[in-house]
């Protein structure tokens, strides 16, 4: 039998966890009742990311408290989405709790493949009053509402775009600050490129995500007026100008092979100080300040720069939902209320530094604000400011059902421009034609 010393922090954490579990409706074990979900098997699935990995550590506590058995899987993002799209479309009972992916939210929620949660939320027997659904930031819940305004998923992440420099010291040495506009961005990248042999700019090669703040900043958009008018606008003069600018920055100031950089490569490159500046997700950029990062002392974050038409940082959310085919909907809701309780959110922040939280009460806590102060920058405030911008609704283009193929066409067009296969005008014109073909294939009336 192995023994181990119990630390004060573990005792406190367990006490907090116990308190969270007691919030579950029904009799708690201490009250002498049988375990509420004894004999129930819950199949839970989410794509692999920081939060789902952290959550795995706490699931045994949920099983212990409720008697449920949880089968938990976290495949990669594309695999998860492909698999779940098929599972949900066939109304399969294979899963009880699933992640509703932002880019698929219009399709999955719109088609009724995940159930509205309002009946659960409004039932005091199923949801404790202090669980407080209104605590979730509006910018993180809006994508998960159906046509009747009913919430169909509880967001576990608000994925917001920010900008950051791994070597802000080099920017300062050039007598500059973090750029606030595209013009300033071009000037900063030119000034610091190859300083200390470091390329100035790197972004993830999912351009249907990373290019959009530039597209909208130049006054362009993916569709004419989503979600009602889905005529693509990829060949507009604004879109061509944005593509030209964005691709020139990456081609001239990016590392060799920048087209192959996935998000994890971008993160590691920044943490190792092998590239300087990026426009990326907050959840990645804050990791530049982690103890294992070589740039923890020199990194800095800011809002995503804006263009002539304004500032349009990406904002996306992912949330827990219940498939319409699930046979354990009540137990699934118990799992969701536990996973998204204030207590567990707090513990995940304390234990793992998980910061992309969706509860306003969490963000407003002094210890959160303090921990999110990175080299003098109040990142929590940047996070709230970005979410406020996102609440204006300019990200709705991502949630329409036929967006994924258009997203792909944007990826291809940007690749062709950066690799000099086509000019910006030619590539965006081709993307427009291909997007029209794709939308017609999807049955969209234009």
């Amino acid at each position: 039998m192995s023994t181990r010393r119990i630390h004060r922090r573990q005792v406190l954490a367990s006490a907090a966890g116990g308190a969270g579990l007691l919030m579950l409706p029904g009799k708690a074990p201490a009250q002498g009742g049988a375990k509420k979900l004894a004999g129930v098997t819950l199949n839970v699935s989410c794509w692999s990311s920081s939060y789902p990995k952290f959550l795995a550590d706490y699931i045994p506590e949920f099983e212990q408290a409720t008697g449920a058995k949880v089968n938990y899987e976290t495949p990669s993002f594309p695999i998860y989405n492909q698999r779940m799209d098929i599972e949900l479309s066939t109304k399969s009972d294979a899963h009880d709790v699933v992640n509703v992916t932002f880019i698929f939210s219009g399709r999955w929620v719109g088609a009724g493949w995940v159930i509205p949660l309002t009946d659960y939320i409004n039932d005091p027997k199923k949801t404790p009053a202090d669980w407080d659904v209104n605590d979730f930031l509006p910018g993180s819940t809006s994508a998960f509402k159906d046509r009747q305004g009913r919430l169909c998923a509880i967001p576990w992440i608000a994925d917001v775009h920010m900008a950051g420099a791994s070597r802000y010291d080099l920017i300062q040495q050039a007598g500059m600050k973090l750029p606030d506009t595209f013009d300033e961005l071009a000037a900063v990248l030119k000034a610091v490129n190859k300083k200390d042999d470091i390329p100035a700019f790197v972004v993830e090669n999912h351009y249907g995500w990373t290019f959009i703040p530039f597209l909208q900043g130049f006054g362009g958009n993916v569709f004419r007026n989503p979600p009602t008018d889905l005529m693509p606008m990829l060949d507009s003069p604004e879109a061509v100008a944005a593509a030209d600018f964005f691709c020139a920055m990456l081609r001239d100031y990016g590392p060799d092979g920048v087209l192959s950089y996935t998000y994890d490569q971008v993160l590691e490159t920044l943490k190792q100080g092998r590239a300087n500046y990026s426009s990326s997700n907050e959840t990645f950029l804050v990791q530049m300040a982690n103890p294992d990062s070589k740039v923890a002392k020199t990194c800095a974050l800011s809002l995503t720069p804006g263009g002539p038409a304004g500032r349009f940082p990406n904002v996306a959310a992912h949330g827990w939902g219940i498939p319409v085919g699930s046979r354990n909907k009540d137990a699934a809701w118990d799992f969701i209320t536990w996973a998204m309780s204030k207590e567990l959110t707090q513990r995940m922040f304390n234990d793992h530094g998980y910061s992309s939280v969706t509860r306003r009460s969490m963000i407003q806590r002094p210890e959160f604000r303090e921990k999110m102060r990175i080299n003098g920058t109040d990142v929590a405030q940047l996070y709230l400011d970005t979410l406020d911008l996102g609440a204006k609704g300019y990200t709705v283009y991502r949630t329409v059902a036929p967006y994924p193929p258009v997203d792909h066409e944007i990826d291809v067009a940007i690749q062709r421009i950066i690799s000099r296969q086509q000019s910006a005008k030619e590539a965006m014109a081709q993307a427009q034609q291909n997007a029209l073909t794709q939308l017609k294939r999807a049955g969209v009336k234009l």
Partner: protein
Amino acid sequence: MGLLPALLVLALVTLGPALYLIITSLTPLTPVNPDTAFDFSDPLGNYQSILTTDEFWRSVWVQIELSAVTVVTQLAAGLGLALLLDRPSRFLEALRTGFLVPMVLPPIVVAIIWKILYTPDISPLHHLLAWLGLPIHSLITNPSTAIWAIAAADTWEWFPFTMLMLLAALQMVPKEPQEAARIDGANAVQLFWHVRLPYIRPTLVVCVLFRLIDSIKAFPLIYVLTDGGPGGATQVTNYYAFEQTFSFSYWGYGSAVATLMVAGVFVLSIMVNRLGGEAIDE
């Protein structure tokens, strides 16, 4: 008559899914609208759409390029090594076993190995070339070199197959005609060309057939190394069908692309089979 139940089961298991693929290709099936599974109002719509889609034709051309390069290089490398290893020696036997390693690795592991080799800032290959004063840019993000980079990785993975097959064939060549040719003064090249090659030609044809069909199924290397990019430069037809079906949920359209691929492979198989038959007859 007694074989009928077994034949029926065999037909159901082997032809059933293929038949369903063809039926699906006649519909605009998408999981967003399950009713489309029974919509046969425009049965040739997918095929008409495919034939007028530039991206499809581009993917066919990329496929032809990739197949031609990989089949030729794998045959050349496999044959060359088989000739070198076709000697009785314990050392060479051990070397043979070593050469088989790439073939038995899971495809995704092979892809990861080459992803590392092709990522400039962490690649030992790039660092070595830079150290030698021969720096090169990323091979997988350059549209001119990306397909060659995939072909190199594919060749590394599969040349052991051709090597193994041809080595076995070489060892089956009877000794008498070889000795007779040597006594008549034939050099190594003449011996290979006039004596050994005719004997191993049927095996060569089988290798071509297998590698050709396998090259059309290329997927993991492309998925990991280039994701079909840059800008579609490595998007083969197989990958195109995958994207249309599983990324965009155009199941009917994807089925039509897959049906055309099956037809293409079928025709190729017949052609190569005939060549093989002629080789054996000779």
